[in-house]
């Protein structure tokens, strides 16, 4: 399922990232804090999706090569997501803060590179099959 294309996004050269107050990126006080936010062009929230720690994510078959606006970290996520992986696992493997990974996952979702499965809401945890599956799974360890 591809989201509608944004023509402006397509034509925008990669080296002039968009929504980006430069003053924020050049905060000399920030030290090592800068890098994760550079990866997200200073964005703190994903454009789409909530991305709970246990939301499961998988890459879907769109070739990201030449896609404008994807950084090396986006591509690293796509490589890891060849098999189903939780947001928490992605942050662990990439050694990046959760917030950063969330923003990049939002980008990838926007561009149709990934699909995701949100966890069951707590209010809906009344399905006996879930408990049974968990108990059987634990027993089988």
């Amino acid at each position, binding site marked *: 399922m591809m989201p509608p294309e944004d023509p402006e996004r397509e034509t925008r050269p990669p080296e002039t990232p968009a929504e980006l107050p430069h003053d924020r990126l050049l905060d000399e*006080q*920030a*030290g090592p*804090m800068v890098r*994760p936010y550079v990866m997200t062009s200073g964005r703190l929230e994903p454009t789409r999706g909530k991305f*709970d*720690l*246990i*939301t*499961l994510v*998988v*890459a*879907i*078959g769109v070739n990201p090569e030449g896609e404008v606006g994807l950084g090396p970290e986006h591509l690293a996520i796509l490589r890891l997501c060849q098999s*189903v992986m*939780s947001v*928490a*696992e992605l*942050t*662990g*493997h990439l*050694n990046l*803060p*959760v*917030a950063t990974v969330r923003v990049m996952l939002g980008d990838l979702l926007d561009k149709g590179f990934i*699909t*995701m*499965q*949100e*966890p*069951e*809401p*707590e209010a*809906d*945890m*009344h*399905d*006996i*099959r*879930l*408990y*049974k*599956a*968990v*108990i*059987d*799974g*634990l*027993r*089988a*360890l």
Partner: protein
Amino acid sequence: MVSGPSSRDMNGRKLPTAVKIVIAGGFGVGKTTMVGTVSETQPLRTEEILTDESIGVDDISGVERKDTTTVAMDFGRITMRDEYVLYLFGTPGQERFWFMWDEVALGALGAVVLADTRRLADCFPSVDYFERRGTPFIVAVNCFEGARRYDLEEIEMALNLGPKVPVMLCDARSLESCKKVLIKMVLHAMKSRGLSPENAAAPQSSGV
């Protein structure tokens, strides 16, 4: 079951749904050990970088020092048969990171509060937290070598929990022991949510 639209991977397979169990307790009580004992993969660590602003310090204006803190959470994964994946999350040790707890506890099947008899009071904040939040939990007393052994009744009395909260002894290094703890927790969570544990506790029989 009410669930969102299910997503499918490239081969049209339905994505599994993840569930999580929280392992809480004081610093050094064995949370990471327990996560590692049952995880099928090398436990991973997720980190959140915090600034003072995000930990709710009142006023940082004029503060020259840049204060950032990293909160780490260890977690492991267990793939279940069928359509579920179970994640175990060890909560961040320090209580000042409550807001991280909120994220971890939200949507959790339930929680295990690990306790150490030498520092029993260390588990009280976790107990209070889950009681307040209404998350089903049990208390598992990690029996450290060299620590004095207490009877379960003595520990229960010292913990002063409601009669409905199960308390048990465990060894976080032992897979069998951790399995017992987690299964007991899941059964307790079912009961807390008004489900009959008997139906799920029966060992897997043919064709079910």
